[in-house]
């Protein structure tokens, strides 16, 4: 035992010193960090975009203008809310499971109808200035000053040579070099590129589509209709969407008036809603409601399956290369004069296992450090999700399946390593096993969607897949029979594989020359080892 631990500790310390280990440890948090940062900062990072609005009809310019300014105010408000939550004196009462969920739903509803009550309220109260004043008392003394986000879209002044009343085609032709980026506009003495041209022709009302006129429009062909949006950037749809929504709102308001419908009533009607509660029959009475955290719990197993897989792939690397190093450098003979092959194998298994666990722990620690550093709305939610995870049985299951999976595959890989003198030889022996290992990853999402379906049940009973599949099904309360049965089978198989691998390892480790053929391998498994 002492010797086994010595081997394990050497193995561990040497692995931890390798570059590969640190890449593995650091890569995941770095990628996570980058994704988080990029996605949350992307919105503010996009450059300010300049557009030209030419409204020959003279009816819609104002609505578009208001819509774009409102959109900016919405962002200011959003940013301010986030700022408030990050810098409040007391963080306890923030973002709780159900309340904000419904509030959020309401908000989304409102946005959809462009009737943002909160935004109205915000604007009518005096916007940011008022909010800053109001919140001062609740802010931490060391809170940084709030920086207002830059407006995303700014109306550019018209170039001098442009005749606004010219026919649409002429205007477009004049502005084409600007839109193509060949020429730049002068804004406050700075040369900026024109992002988009919105051209509302004089006769635009003729193009209004009403259910009754739909037929005619479809038959009619040729030429752009309605509002013309000219831009070479096709991916950023925020501006055209905002314009379309605002103009449609303006038109609809006209329609309401012309048809004698009370607008305030329509608004009220549009904001009327019936919430949908998602319930989970598996939960205790009174708490059946499916919260955001519950949804996360549904998907967490897949994350764990990935974690098992990634960690296993990392360990495979060590299992093979370290065994082969000992063989090809002939260190093995000195070792075997000091330790039994069994002790050597166990030592390697433990040492490399510890390496894998260290990596996972490092990921977890960096994840928590990350949460601590960025206590924003999203991460507060994540902490909650984590609480849920910790209180469920997902973690112990993960630990169990991780260990079984590791022991099962490590045994096989160590045996392969013991038979090979070079990594190249090992690679050809590994191929079939690697293909087997890809299966649980390929089927992962199917199993997550139908955790107690036929595929899931069948795969659960194949020991090589059991850890992945059962982990994947963990949140879906698989039948007791499956849980107990597959666990027993898995444990039994793991022990059997380790035992057989031990035999192969003992004989393989002293071999030189080509890896054995299947028939020889079979003989090695059956033969009692040449050593005790």
């Amino acid at each position: 035992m002492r010797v086994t631990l010595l081997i394990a500790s050497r193995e561990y310390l040497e692995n931890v010193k390798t570059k590969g280990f640190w890449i593995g440890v650091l890569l995941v948090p770095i990628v996570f960090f980058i994704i988080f940062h990029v996605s949350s900062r992307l919105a503010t990072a996009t450059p300010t975009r300049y557009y030209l609005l030419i409204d020959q009809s003279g009816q819609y310019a104002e609505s578009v203008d208001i819509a774009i300014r409102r959109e900016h105010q919405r962002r200011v408000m959003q940013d301010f809310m986030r700022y408030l939550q990050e810098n409040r004196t007391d963080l306890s009462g923030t973002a709780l499971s159900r309340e904000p969920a419904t509030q959020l739903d309401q908000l989304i509803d409102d946005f959809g109808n462009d009737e943002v009550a909160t935004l109205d309220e915000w604007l009518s109260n005096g916007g940011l200035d008022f909010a800053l004043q109001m919140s001062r008392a609740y802010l931490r003394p060391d809170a940084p000053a709030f920086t207002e986000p830059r407006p995303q879209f700014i109306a550019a002044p018209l170039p001098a040579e442009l005749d606004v009343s010219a026919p649409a085609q002429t205007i477009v032709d004049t502005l084409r070099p600007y839109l193509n980026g060949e020429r730049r506009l002068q804004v406050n003495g700075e040369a900026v590129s024109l992002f988009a041209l919105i051209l509302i022709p004089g006769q635009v009302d003729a193009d209004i589509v009403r259910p009754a006129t739909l037929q005619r429009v479809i038959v009619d062909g040729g030429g752009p209709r309605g509002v013309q949006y000219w831009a070479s950037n096709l991916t950023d749809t925020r501006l055209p969407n905002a314009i379309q929504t605002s103009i449609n709102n303006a038109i609809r308001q006209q329609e309401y008036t012309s048809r004698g419908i009370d607008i305030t009533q329509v608004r009220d009607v549009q904001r009327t809603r019936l919430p949908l509660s998602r319930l989970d029959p598996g939960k205790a009475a009174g708490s059946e409601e499916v919260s955001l955290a519950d949804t996360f719990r549904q998907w967490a197993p897949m994350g764990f399956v990935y974690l098992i897989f990634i960690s296993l792939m990392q360990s495979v690397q060590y299992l093979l290369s370290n065994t082969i190093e000992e063989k090809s450098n002939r260190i093995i003979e000195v070792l075997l004069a000091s330790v039994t092959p069994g002790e050597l194998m166990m030592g390697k298994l433990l040492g490399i296992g510890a390496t894998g666990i260290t990596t996972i722990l490092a990921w977890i620690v960096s994840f928590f450090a990350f949460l601590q550093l960025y206590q924003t709305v999203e991460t507060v939610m994540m902490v909650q999700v984590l609480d849920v995870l910790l209180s469920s049985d997902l973690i112990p299951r993960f630990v169990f399946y991780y260990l079984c999976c590791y022991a099962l595959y490590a045994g096989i890989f160590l045996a392969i390593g013991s038979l090979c003198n070079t990594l190249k030889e090992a690679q050809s022996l590994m191929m079939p096993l690697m293909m087997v290992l890809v299966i649980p990853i390929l089927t992962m999402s199917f199993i997550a969607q139908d955790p107690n379906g036929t595929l899931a049940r069948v795969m659960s009973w194949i020991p090589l897949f059991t850890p992945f599949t059962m982990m994947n099904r963990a949140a879906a309360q698989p039948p007791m029979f499956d849980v107990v049965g597959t666990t027993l089978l898995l444990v039994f198989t793991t022990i059997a594989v380790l035992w057989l691998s031990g035999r192969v390892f003992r004989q393989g480790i002293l071999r030189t020359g080509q890896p054995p053929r299947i028939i020889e391998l079979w003989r090695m498994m059956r033969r009692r080892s040449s050593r005790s």
Partner: protein
Amino acid sequence: MSDPVLSLTNVSKRYGDFTAVNAINLSIPRGSVYGFLGPNGAGKTTTIRMILDIIRPDEGEIQVLGASSAMHVRERIGYLPEEKGLYKKMKVWAIIAYFATLKGMHRREAKTRAYELLEKYGLKDFANSSVESLSKGMGQKVQVLSSIAHNPELVILDEPFSGLDPVNQEVLEQLIRDLKENGQTVIFSTHIMQHAERLCERLLLITQGRKVFDGTVDEARAIIPRRVILECTNDISTLAQIEGVLSVQELPIGNDGRLHGTRQWELYVKEQTDPQQILQYCFQNRINLSRFDFTQASLHDVFMHLVGPEAREHNFR
């Protein structure tokens, strides 16, 4: 002191139809330096591996330090295998300490011991380099040190001298003498007869898996008759009449720097024959000697005598 450190009784090992080691009997007394000699493929390494229980004999009994398997007494044995190798990324001191701890030494003690050994045998400056950066010979020295770091009672070195320069061969010889002085038993295999001659008290000579000799160096020398070289102008074939002279033969003229016009004779005499007897005979018979060489048989001669023809044959097999 009485019971042997190692004893082999009728030990055989077969690889398929081929018998690598054939019914070897051997007993090695405590505190001795023991040499394993034999041509390539004789079975030395196989025997050593069986002693260490790395492979199992097909027949026979092996007793090491009173145990039936070396694994039971592994802490008391040190081993340098024929094919040398170390963990490339480890530090020199760490690898010596690691193998010492595997053999039951305490971690801190092992570290001190590693530095001590490195200093003593001239590798102090490399203590903190990685094994990778060592030359082959230095690496081999490190490996020798790692095999003796835990002060084993029995040290088994398989071809420890191969690949070392003359200076380091000296160092290693000294190391083996130090071990002996310390009361440790050393077994080593080698192809360099001078080392065996200088270091060993006893020898085992095997060829094609069979023991052909086992005994002291002097006993080995006694196996082949002593050779006397005489140079004179006379015909001295009558020397054969002297008691103890086995054969007299004139050597053909060769490029051996003899005086012009002299003849050279080779005599083989029995081990106990007194050279004075021959000299006296020459004097009495007025034979004018211009050279009289009475040499002890070297181990090399013994080796060639015992295994030469077979070894050559073996190579053509």
